[in-house]
């Protein structure tokens, strides 16, 4: 399983811990689909964690 971090989250050593503590800020995706923080990761190929998006 691969874990991907994006943007400023990537620069933080405790990124995963921070992500889990702030579900209202850090979003998660499993296999390129957005999920809530309580989604099961069993069988996931990739898990991604990222801060608020600033596209467009």
């Amino acid at each position, binding site marked *: 399983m691969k874990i*991907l971090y*994006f*943007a*400023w989250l990537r620069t933080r050593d405790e990124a995963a811990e921070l992500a889990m503590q702030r579900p209202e800020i850090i979003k998660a*995706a499993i296999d*390129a*689909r*957005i999920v809530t923080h309580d989604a099961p990761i069993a069988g996931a190929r990739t898990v*991604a964690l*990222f*801060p*608020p*998006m*600033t*596209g*467009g």
Partner: protein
Amino acid sequence: MGLRIQEASFDPGAELNAFSELSDGAGAIVSFTGLVRSTQGDPISTLTLECYPELALNQIGELVHEAHARFALLDEVVIHRYGTLNPGEPIVQVMTLSAHREAAFEAARFLMDYLKTDAPFWKKEATAAGDRWVEQRSADDEAKARWSDPA
């Protein structure tokens, strides 16, 4: 329905010309282009967009399908760049085609309001004082919320 997520630059005028060729039953085309902004008071040298491509294709693909159905569009195209861009360059282009103008205008607005908050890109500006990550604006969340207002 067209969706392109690419690093390469594009010419919004050429894209609009190509889009305008498909038009059975169409009476209205709307095109919006988002540019890299730099102001004299707070200039940036470049804007770098980080991207999660697989998620972008899934998210924006679903968004475009939703717009097509919700506004009964005849066709629509979204082009979004990532990578390092210079001030004034196009970042994103949204084009909509419909029988009458209301749907084309509304759908283009809907797509942009959602692209600002739900498209997996992260912008970083390079300035003389260093790099800084762009933050979400509350105005963008409010704009998106309007589309779910039951009233």
